[in-house]
């Protein structure tokens, strides 16, 4: 059911039946270390390249997510997801090992939000089971967007660290004591003209504020309807900026959090925090899902955020458009 301009509330129950998270070695020392389902002992994970490792990560996470609830990949109606690498190779290549109909998605780091929105719509309709998975890898992202790994550059204070990790969820019609996707607000691409690729939090914050404010206007809800509003990878500066932008519009987000700001511990200090398509899916599958299961969280607004730049667009002097999708995740009782 469409509400307002860009929000859809699902009529049927779409359960998140299973979730699985895999964290890289650096992430495993971060704030959520006790929550990860599996941890990689090193970045290459016995593969011949970091790209192969990312493929293997998705394959592993999807396999474990399904086997946890004894679901055969062939019984799933669709597998969807994405990543940050050229032509979403990690996702597409991992999908060749599953005999599941596949849809590749790309919304930069907001891909997991896009996957949850499309997947839940399909399950709200005729689909029985849909798997959503995204990943990112520090080494593959560095090569794609920045410099060779061994180049001795100095990160700027606003920069973020791409999370090595992957998270998958199984959306299903099967009733149970699981959290549910209740609806979503699809974000618009927003560009306020920032062009510094080292400050993606600043570039994405306007998109996040636009989506979140549209969500409240569409639904008539106030921020305190949710136990937590959690964005994808704005980083500390981006989160503060989002708070400021929403406050200017009259929405005081006291319960605002950000996966990227939380994923690393204070001791690790990688700039403003984590980023990447795997950042929010990892934190969701590892931490938020478990908190929803044990009922310490009941209603969350999960807002994966993405910066839609490429290395070439940045070199050509283009500004960085941002996007954010807000997904309503609630549990009954």
């Amino acid at each position, binding site marked *: 059911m469409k509400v307002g301009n860009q929000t859809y509330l699902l009529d049927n129950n779409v359960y998140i039946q299973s979730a699985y998270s895999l964290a890289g070695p650096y992430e495993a020392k971060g704030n959520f270390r006790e929550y990860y389902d599996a941890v990689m002992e090193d970045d290459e994970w016995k593969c*011949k*390249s970091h790209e192969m490792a990312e493929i293997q990560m998705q394959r592993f996470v999807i396999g474990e997510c399904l086997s946890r609830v004894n679901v055969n990949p062939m019984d799933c109606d669709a597998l969807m997801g994405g990543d940050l690498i050229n032509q979403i190779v990690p996702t597409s290549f991992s999908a060749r090992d599953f005999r599941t109909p596949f849809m590749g998605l790309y919304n930069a780091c907001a891909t997991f939000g896009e996957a949850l929105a499309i997947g839940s719509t399909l399950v709200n309709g005729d689909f029985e089971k849909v798997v959503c998975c995204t990943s990112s890898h520090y080494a593959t992202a560095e*090569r794609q967007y920045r*410099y*060779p*790994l*061994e*180049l*001795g*550059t*100095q*990160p*700027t*204070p*606003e920069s973020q660290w791409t999370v090595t990790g992957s998270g998958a969820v199984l959306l299903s019609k099967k009733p149970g004591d699981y959290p549910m996707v209740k609806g979503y607000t699809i974000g618009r691409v927003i560009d*306020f*003209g*920032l062009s510094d690729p080292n*400050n993606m939090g*600043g570039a994405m914050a*306007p998109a996040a504020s636009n989506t979140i404010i549209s969500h409240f206007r569409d639904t008539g809800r106030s921020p305190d309807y949710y136990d937590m509003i959690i964005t994808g990878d704005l980083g500390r*500066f981006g989160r*503060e*900026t989002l708070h*400021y*932008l929403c406050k*200017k519009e009259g929405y005081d987000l006291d319960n605002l959090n950000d996966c990227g700001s939380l994923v690393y511990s204070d001791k690790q200090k990688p700039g*403003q925090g984590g980023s990447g398509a795997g950042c929010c899916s990892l934190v969701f599958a590892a931490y938020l899902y478990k908190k929803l299961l044990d009922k310490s969280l009941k209603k969350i607004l999960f807002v994966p955020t993405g910066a839609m730049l490429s290395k070439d667009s940045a070199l050509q002097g283009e500004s960085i458009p941002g996007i954010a999708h807000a997904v309503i995740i609630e549990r009954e009782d």
Partner: protein
Amino acid sequence: MEDKQYIDYVHTHAQKSSHITTLIWAFAVGGLICCVGQAFSDIFSAVLPNWEESKIAALVSMTMIFLGSFLTAIGVYDKIGVHAGGGSIVPITGFANSVVSPAMEFNKEGIVLGMMAKMFVVAGPIIVAGTVSSVLTGLIYWIVGLF
């Protein structure tokens, strides 16, 4: 909020690098690299007293390039660079690092189209700028010499 206002907001509120810390680090590490180079120069001059100064200088450069490449290969140079910034980029060891790091990175795409083709993606602009400026300088000298 206007775009312009927002950009101003971000520029005033974003965290800036601490100039003092980065300067001290760059000065200390850059200076240390130069001291190592000078030490090699002194050692080579003492060991090879018959060699001309220009040959000793070439030998020192080669030694420093080797050290920069070696530290890159064993994954140390990038860790120095995180703190030292310009201090480890500017000396010749930094130039070695900028050639060896893409060679390592793109080795996975093959020797010819990976490593050899992409070895100069970082250092290429420096080589072009160096060549062009040396040609221009030569031209200026030549023209000045005519009068």
